[in-house]
């Protein structure tokens, strides 16, 4: 029930925010912020009552009772579809991330959004609700439902409040995700049909569908359906082209949610569904998957280096960073997986922050073109310092979250395949190249006369507060990531057990 409430609060909150605009057009953002924080507090309160997560024995993937929370009630019994939500370590991490970044996104929209504030905040909250659903749903159809529905508010956020080229970007974003989503739907139904013919019962429940027996070839194709859907969202190398446009065109808050949260749903899907449901097929596929990941790391970095648009650069850096996640997942050992999870969290913060900076720059300069910037540190030292922090974070400075993530991924990957590791490691160099270029072009360099008389306002207390939250988060993740690792550990443990024997067989293949 708790999980239903979590989603419900956001949905209703959205309505409230929309209505509240009638009374005062400054209301919606406050309402929205209040709603998200309430949600967060509510979750924390409920958790405080729970057994310490690290105490849980590894939640057996196929036994919901061992999970942190589990809720199930019939929805469409005709097909064994039920409203089944469950929470384990990884989902918990993602849910927390979602809510925190949600609050941050709202703060980002504080002054950024000037028209139809109410509807905007509503969309924001609804997309958050959708994402929560994705992270908690364990009925495959329900999951698919959230997966698709969370896009609609996002679509509106881009299409209505986006920048100059929003129509194209929104459309591209929606079609990419929808088309791949259809493939996933077919895969889901195929899986269910197979289970139906095996057992004679209709069921969409994750727990029933785990270790469904099927022919290797079939498994391969069905798995690909999931894989494509998730990799498009991740985004993985050849399917990433929607991301730069969407991120660049979206309003700041939109970019924050996209980069911070929505991308993570793809990674989550891979960890939760794509591999465990078809261990053998997935891990036979791990070599190409890892190649895609490495390609993403390199390709993203190179393209980021070539950009002149502040947001576009960050967008491509996301492609590069999420490449590590893909690598981590398909290396499929605890080190790498932990790395992937860490990366999901850390990247969430670092990129969200960078997008906020980009947003506030656009707010002040009305451009994202870095050729028009330079020397901004002079007028906005605070913003500059903050930017510097997150830039070095994103280039993987030890002591900050991203480093832990990337190092763990590489460490795990090295066990599986040294050469791919080497390719991926070049990402550290190219990463440095584009990150520093970003800094150089925007905040350092000759002070641009153009803005000299503009009287640009530096970060105010609200912005600094928001940034501080993320900085602290990254530092803590960087020097004491253990809480996160411990939360994810039992889950990963069980997933690995679930797939041990295929892994070994596959490990040979890959080596």
């Amino acid at each position, binding site marked *: 029930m708790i999980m239903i409430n979590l989603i419900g609060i956001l949905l209703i909150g959205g309505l409230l925010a929309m209505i509240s605009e009638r009374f005062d057009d400054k209301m919606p953002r406050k309402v929205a912020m209040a709603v998200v924080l309430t949600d967060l507090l509510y979750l924390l309160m409920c958790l405080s009552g729970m057994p310490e997560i690290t105490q849980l024995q590894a939640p057996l993937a196929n036994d919901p009772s061992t999970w942190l929370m589990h809720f199930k009630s019939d929805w469409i019994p005709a097909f064994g579809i039920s409203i089944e939500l469950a929470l384990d370590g990884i989902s918990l991490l993602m849910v927390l991330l979602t809510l925190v970044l949600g609050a941050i996104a709202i703060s980002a929209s504080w002054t950024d959004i000037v028209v139809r504030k109410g509807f905007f905040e509503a969309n924001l909250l609804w997309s958050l609700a959708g994402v929560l659903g994705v992270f908690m749903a364990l009925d495959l159809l329900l999951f698919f439902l959230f997966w*698709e529905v969370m896009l*609609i508010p996002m679509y509106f956020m881009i299409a209505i409040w986006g920048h100059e080229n929003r129509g194209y970007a929104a459309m591209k974003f929606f*079609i990419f995700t*929808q088309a791949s989503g*259809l493939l996933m*739907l*077919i895969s889901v139904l195929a899986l269910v049909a197979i289970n139906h013919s095996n057992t004679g019962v209709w069921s969409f429940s994750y727990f029933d569908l785990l270790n469904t027996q099927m022919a290797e070839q079939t498994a391969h194709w069905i798995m690909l359906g999931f894989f494509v859907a998730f990799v498009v969202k991740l985004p993985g190398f050849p399917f990433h082209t929607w991301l730069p446009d969407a991120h660049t065109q979206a309003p700041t808050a939109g970019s924050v949610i996209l980069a911070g949260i929505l991308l993570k749903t793809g990674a989550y899907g891979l960890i939760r569904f794509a591999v465990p449901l078809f261990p053998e097929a997935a891990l036979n596929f791990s070599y190409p998957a890892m190649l895609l990941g490495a390609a993403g790391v390199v390709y993203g970095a190179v393209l980021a280096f070539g950009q002149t648009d502040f947001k576009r650069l960050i967008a491509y850096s996301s492609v590069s960073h999420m490449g590590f996640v893909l690598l981590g997942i398909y290396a499929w050992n605890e080190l790498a997986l932990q790395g992937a999870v860490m990366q999901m969290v850390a990247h969430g913060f670092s990129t969200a922050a960078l997008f906020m900076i980009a947003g506030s720059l656009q707010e002040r300069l009305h451009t994202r073109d870095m050729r028009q910037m330079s020397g901004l540190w002079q007028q906005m030292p605070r913003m500059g310092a903050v930017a510097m922090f997150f830039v070095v974070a994103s280039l993987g400075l030890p002591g900050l979250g991203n480093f832990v993530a990337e190092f763990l991924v590489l460490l795990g990957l090295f066990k599986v395949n040294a050469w791919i590791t080497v390719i991926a490691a070049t990402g550290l160099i190219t990463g440095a190249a584009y990150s520093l270029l970003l800094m150089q072009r925007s905040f350092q360099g000759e002070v641009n006369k153009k803005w000299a008389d503009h009287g640009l306002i530096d970060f105010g207390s609200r912005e600094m507060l928001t940034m501080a939250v993320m900085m602290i988060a990254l530092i803590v993740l960087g020097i004491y990531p253990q809480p996160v690792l411990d939360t994810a550990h039992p889950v990963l443990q069980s997933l690995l057990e679930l797939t041990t024997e295929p892994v070994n067989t596959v490990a040979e293949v890959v080596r």
Partner: protein
Amino acid sequence: MNASMFSALAPILILSLTAVVLMAQASIKRDQAIASMITGVGFVLALFAAHYARDFAQPVTILLQVDHWSLFFTSLIIISSFVTLILSLETFSPEGERKEEYYLLLVLSVLGAVVLIQSSHMVSLLLGMELMGVALYAMIAFPEKGELPLEGAIKYLVLSACASAMLLYGFALIYAATGSLSYLGIGARAAEAYVQNPMLIMAGSAMVLAGIGFKLSVAPFHMWTPDVYEGAPTPVTGFLATVSKGAVFVALTRFYIDGNLHQYSGLNTALVVLAIASMLIGNWLALRQENIKRLLAYSSIAHFGYLLVVLIALSYMDDQLVSQSITFYLTAYLVTTLAAFAVVSTIAGEDVKRQDISAFEGLFWYRPLEASALTIAMLSLAGIPLTAGFMAKFFVITVGIQSDLWVLLGVLVLGSAVGIYYYLRVIFAMSKSSQGGEQTANKLEKILAVALIVSVLLLGSWPQPFIAYAGGL
């Protein structure tokens, strides 16, 4: 013919009675208000009759098959016609011209549709189809001004007459091959007839398919659709898109099942080709269409392509799930389409210029209700979860997977992916910020839109009851 049979025929009788009354009324006192009133009452009564007839489900003579399934669709059709009626009130508002006949035509063609649905015999099929069709020609051409309606009407008349001719000739061949005119009779004799002379019966059923395919505007028999949709008065277009197509598809299904035609791989291949063609051509045609009525026309082509997939699946699995799927899909499609046309007719009316997508810009901001309604309708047509359209697709894909129709599924995915684009274009246009338009609001239509959208969402988000019900039919 005993009493219970009459009770089974209640809906048909009521509708016929309504028609008679309308004629009488027209001869006594010409008054649009009264006419529409009578029609409305007639529909409501017919609806009750349809419910009442459930207890007397039986084959009535050799011509009609009254069972729960057909009765369900009867009531669905009547409801749709009721919606059409309401929309028509706005469109054909009394402005000097005489409009009473319109309602008569409406009732007649509904009567035709009902007969069509319940038909279990070539003759009744022919009767229903013609009754519906002929009335429709007149309805399309009804506006006395403008060239488009007339052009639409004449095209529809000629083409559909040609289609009927094909249908008839097909029947003739089948009759020649099997010596039976009733579906069950055909089904019984088909096998041996096939052995004797496959050419005859195959060619016959192919021609029947062609004739019916035209009415369903399945590619390559689709070309009339956009012109007629655009030309016809919007409520009539809605009627055409929902009542006529729905009824014809029901008839086709019955013919296909009872006639055991799904055994013949040749026909099956033919259907596969039709389905693929429709899915692709429909979506591609709609891709950059500016006029929303034409856009809906093309999208309907694609949708009947999807629906054919289910029919094809008949060859590979028991008809239980299949008929369930058809029921659900048709219902979802009808409701969604009605919702769409309800909005279009309120916003665009009969003005061609205002039927352009660009004319819908900013609708969200000055007419939120209609805009949200149209949005949901579009999402449902695109098959986004939580809408009826999604559950419908869910059925199609499930059926498709169960009978391993991977090629068709592939095409379906492709088609839907293309489809998303043009459905979203409409939504995007509405979400553009533009100067506020007029605030005209018709209570009745608002309520109508809300009701339809609610049912779309209900079908999508809580389909269990309906699925159970459809399963019981």
